[in-house]
């Protein structure tokens, strides 16, 4: 009787049932969408962070930022010879600098690894290479008196008694800036290469601690037409390209990977590292490990992924904030409104059925049976709303993923000694760097989100049913007669 009665009543009140279900569906769809977009934001942030950290890294240790001393401005300088002949010979100069100009002693890697709560620590040296190449063209000095001109060199200076003027000449230089990471080839589970996938060739072997080999990022290799087996020249040293790697996050901030020793040699930073990548034994104890390292190893800055996440700005950050604040509260508000509307409509429907419920009570139906009938109807409404809401929410999440709106993430503003926030890619010698990355937003819907939606649907049904059932249970059988008279 319960099922038949329920089915018939819902069939009779299709419009009311649909209004209740749609209200709940809207709220639930919004919750699913906001949740999935939030999850997408988190994934996007994770991608951004992993592109800097590499997989498996819980925190990084860098040298605490200090003010530049003496004349060391940290800016690169280039020296080119003025040629005395009439040659247009191309000149080239590479300037290799450590990231932010500040580095730690490599021995600290071992010290960090010995700290309580540290499972593993690996050092890396991040460099910025600026390559300038081009040539000078001599100008022609011409006398205003019409004498044959004499050649000047590189501009004014070619003397002539007739006060000749220099015409033509100049310089054409191309500046190419890229980042290099020195990798501890004996342990690649942490560090810059950890998040990379070799798509061509191979990665370093443990024996290549000081080999002149390089792994390039796919984007850098493509841009500069490098392939496995070719030779790359950095600051006069030739490296054989042994592998091409792609970041699993589709974003790479490092262009060239070298064995750590080679990078140290390049930068003239023997036994130095810029970053120590740390993995904690327990991911829940990251803050404790951070405190321990900061306490025991002075002059360092420890940056966790949580710290780094705070440095993410740009539209990703804005959208993330919107999703977690406005989206959350909007969902709560819509859900609350949907629950309220469902409860009021159910209550109103019960009021219109006074005679019906009064009659059933007069026939000897206990209040609990009448209440169960009302709650049952509301539950079906709630589940219908839940199913509709899940459908709508999945469609919205699918649409977001299909459209894949591009969000930009600006990372860090504290390069140099300021911690991981300043990843590779900033201009050489900058004390503060900022990486802008473009991330495609997706909206993954997890089983937890679906479970949450079902839970909300049941809750909505229960709230509405409880309200209606409460009213129905308070009706007296005499109401069946009273409504007649």
């Amino acid at each position, binding site marked *: *009787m319960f099922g*038949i*009665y329920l089915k*018939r*009543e819902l*069939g*009779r009140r299709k419009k009311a049932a649909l209004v209740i279900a749609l209200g709940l569906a809207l709220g639930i769809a919004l919750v699913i969408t906001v949740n999935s977009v939030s999850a997408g934001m988190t994934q996007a942030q994770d991608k951004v962070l992993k592109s800097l950290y590499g997989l498996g890294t819980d925190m990084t240790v860098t040298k605490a930022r200090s003010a530049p001393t003496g004349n060391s401005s940290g800016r690169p300088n280039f020296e080119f010879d003025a040629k005395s002949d009439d040659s247009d010979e191309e000149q080239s100069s590479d300037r290799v600098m450590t990231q932010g100009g500040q580095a730690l002693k490599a021995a600290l890697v071992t010290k960090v690894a010995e700290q309580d709560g540290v499972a593993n620590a690996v050092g890396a040296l991040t460099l910025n290479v600026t390559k300038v190449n081009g040539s000078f063209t001599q100008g022609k000095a011409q006398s205003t008196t019409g004498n044959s001109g004499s050649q000047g060199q590189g501009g004014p200076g070619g003397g002539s008694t007739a006060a000749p003027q220099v015409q033509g000449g100049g310089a054409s230089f191309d500046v190419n800036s890229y980042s290099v990471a020195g990798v501890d080839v004996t342990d690649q589970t942490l560090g810059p290469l950890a998040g990379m996938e070799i798509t061509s060739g191979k990665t370093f072997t443990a024996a290549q601690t000081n080999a002149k080999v390089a792994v390039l990022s796919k984007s850098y290799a493509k841009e500069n037409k490098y392939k496995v087996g070719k030779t790359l020249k950095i600051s006069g040293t030739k490296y054989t390209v042994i592998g091409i790697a792609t970041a699993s996050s589709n974003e790479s901030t490092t262009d060239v990977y070298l064995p750590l020793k080679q990078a140290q040699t390049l930068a003239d930073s023997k036994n130095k590292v810029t970053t120590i990548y740390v993995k904690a034994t327990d991911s829940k104890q990251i803050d404790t490990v951070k405190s321990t390292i900061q306490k025991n190893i002075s002059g360092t800055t420890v940056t966790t992924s949580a710290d780094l996440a705070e440095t993410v700005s740009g539209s990703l950050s804005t959208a993330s904030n919107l999703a977690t604040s406005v989206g959350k509260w909007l969902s709560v508000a819509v859900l609350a409104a949907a629950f309220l509307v469902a409860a009021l409509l159910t209550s109103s429907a019960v009021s219109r059925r006074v*005679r*019906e419920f*009064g*009659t*059933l*009570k*007069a*026939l*000897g*139906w*206990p*209040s609990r*049976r009448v209440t169960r009938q009302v709650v049952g109807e509301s539950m079906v409404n709630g589940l219908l709303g839940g199913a509709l809401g899940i459908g709508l929410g999945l469609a919205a999440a699918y649409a977001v993923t299909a459209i894949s709106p591009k969000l930009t993430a600006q990372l860090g503003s504290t390069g140099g000694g300021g911690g991981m926030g300043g990843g590779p890619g900033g201009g050489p010698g900058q004390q503060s760097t900022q990486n802008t990355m473009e991330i495609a937003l997706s909206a993954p819907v997890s089983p937890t989100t679906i479970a949450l939606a079902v839970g909300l649907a049941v809750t909505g049904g229960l709230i509405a049913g409880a309200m209606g059932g409460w009213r129905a249970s308070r009706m*007296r*059988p*005499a109401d*069946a*007669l*009273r409504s*007649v*008279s």
Partner: protein
Amino acid sequence: MYRLTGVTKRYSRGKETVEALRGIDLTIEDGDQLVIQGPTGGGKSTLLQMIGGLDRPTEGSVELDGVDLARISEAKLTRLRAEKIGIIFQSFNLIPTLTAQENVETALVPLGVKPAERRERAAEALRSVGLGERLGHAPAELSGGQQQRVAIARALVKKPKVLLADEPTGNLDESMRDEIMALLEGLWHEYGLTFVMVTHDSSIARRAPRLATIKAGQITLTEQRRQQQQQQQQQSYAQY
């Protein structure tokens, strides 16, 4: 047997207190038929509610077979209504979404009767009131008289001890009224029910063995000649 002693019912209407029943004393023997008549607002329906255990008196007692309906728990009162009391309403009070058979079944639901038996007994009850061909019809597909027959089947399907009817012919035309009354009289005789009916209709009231007139919450009983009354009724209903 019903024994009502000093039954008083007061309602609060804002600051005003309305006394619907004033110290009613009444005894109804098993198998009796009592018709309650009176002006609108006189307390007829209120008295029926007390007898049916649909409401409780403010003062006094309503005993059915020695059980005071005013004192027992709500659960026991509900159970008692389910088992012993059949009620017929003026507006039939059928559930509009259920078929005639399902409506009759609703009276058996609180008794825990198994679905198959429920369906069988409901069909049998409908056949007994002449609606054997209308089992699957919704109330809206039935005439007023047929709807009231469904309501009568619903009241009787559980084989109650008491049948209460609140203006059972109030919404029917004259021919349908006589048809329903003949049916109720026949069933009263057949089942030996205690039958209490509220009516405005004087022609029905005149035929009752006992007539209770309620005016301003007070009752006046008239014992009409039973034998003569029954003979008249038999003659009168023979024509149906």
